[in-house]
């Protein structure tokens, strides 16, 4: 081959090689661009993932907050339950004591009668039987009170509201109640009508009256006034009243203030709790106010009756 031809062929070969290199460079650049794009995509994905993770983290934190909140509620509910349990234990202890007391006399005297009938005098037999009779009535009253309270607390007590002329109901209650009812003065307009279960109303007024006789001092007075769509009945006495620190417990179960004036008075301690339950079951309220300057004022707020009375 001649020298010129060789030179031209080399040049062509170089040129081809250069072209190839350029091609490779181009391809490499494309690959790099692709890689860069892929990296960018990955970075975008990471960003998206990061946002998703942040949002998941936020959701988890919210769940943890909610859990804390719920745990607080559960803790509080546990404390409430423990208090309810404690109150229930106290209630059962007092109820058991009060049920056992009349039972003791009944069991004791009936055993004495059974074992010594032939040797007992007629007078003693009569005394034993009348004690059993008295204590069995006491026991029956207490059991009835417990059942009424249980129905009230379970929300299953049935009320049969009627339109009642209040003055007549108060007079009937005074006639049926024990104690010095003749000395009780009444101030009640004859046109006052309430809508209430008559048995429940009788129980409320009688309970307030018996409280006034037992724990208060005369004169005892019953007053009634209409206030809007409610009628307020007040039973007032002039005794020592309720100690201020006991007022909040007054309508609780087995409530009996431990002061000298009440310590020797016997009662189930369920009366006012039942009164409040009966008042509320009939759409009313039961509450206490001091009778200034001295004494107690027990209040029943009753729904006013519309239309003609029964």
């Amino acid at each position: 081959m001649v020298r010129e031809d060789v030179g031209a062929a080399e040049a062509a070969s170089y040129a081809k090689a250069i072209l190839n290199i350029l091609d490779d460079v181009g391809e490499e650049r494309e690959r790099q661009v692709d890689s860069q794009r892929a990296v960018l995509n990955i970075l975008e994905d990471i960003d998206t993932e990061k946002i998703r993770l942040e949002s998941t983290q936020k959701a988890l934190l919210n769940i943890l907050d909610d859990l804390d909140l719920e745990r607080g509620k559960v803790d509080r509910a546990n404390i409430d339950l423990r208090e309810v349990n404690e109150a229930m234990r106290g209630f059962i202890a007092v109820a058991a004591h009060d049920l056992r007391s009349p039972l003791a006399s009944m069991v004791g005297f009936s055993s004495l009668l059974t074992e010594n009938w032939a040797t007992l005098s007629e007078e003693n037999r009569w005394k034993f039987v009348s004690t059993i009779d008295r204590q069995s009535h006491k026991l029956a009253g207490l059991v009835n009170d417990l059942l009424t309270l249980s129905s009230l607390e379970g929300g299953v007590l049935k009320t049969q509201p009627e339109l009642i002329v209040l003055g007549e109901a108060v007079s009937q209650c005074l006639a049926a109640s024990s104690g010095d009812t003749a000395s009780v003065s009444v101030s009640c307009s004859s046109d006052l009508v309430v809508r209430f279960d008559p048995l429940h109303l009788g129980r409320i007024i009688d309970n307030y009256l018996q409280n006034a006789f037992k724990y208060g001092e005369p004169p005892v007075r019953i007053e009634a006034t209409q206030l809007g769509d409610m009628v307020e009945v007040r039973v007032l006495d002039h005794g020592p009243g309720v100690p201020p620190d006991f007022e909040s417990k007054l309508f609780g179960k087995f409530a009996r203030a431990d002061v000298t004036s009440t310590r020797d008075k016997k009662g189930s301690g369920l009366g006012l709790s039942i009164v409040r339950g009966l008042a509320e079951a009939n759409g009313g309220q039961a509450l206490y106010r001091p009778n200034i300057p001295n004494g107690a004022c027990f209040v029943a707020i009753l729904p006013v009756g519309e239309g003609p009375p029964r």
Partner: protein
Amino acid sequence: MKILVIVEDDPDVQFLIETIFSMDPRFALARVAESAEDALATAQTTEPEIIVLDHGLSGNLNGLEAARQFKELAPQTKIILFTAHAELEARTIDEPAIDAFLLKTDTAGLLPLAQELTDMLSLM
């Protein structure tokens, strides 16, 4: 004679305890008191062999509080806590002033228990 003091504020239960002890002529009733304070006044002049003591009483002292004072006045006296408070039984186990606990509904057990306690006393 075994001197008996009854501390009980329920008249029917007072009468019941009196009647139960009247079945055993060895017991002589010294006092029926409604409050621990009244019974303590009696124990200052007459040392009873046996006291039947209720827990919830008229006056300011309850049965458990009164028992300690009775024992200070008359250490030999046997005390039966005769009450309707069943929950007190556990407390009386660690209370040296109480010699025996009896629920009020277990009236048949009262006289035998008093006899047993006072018989122990006469053996000492």
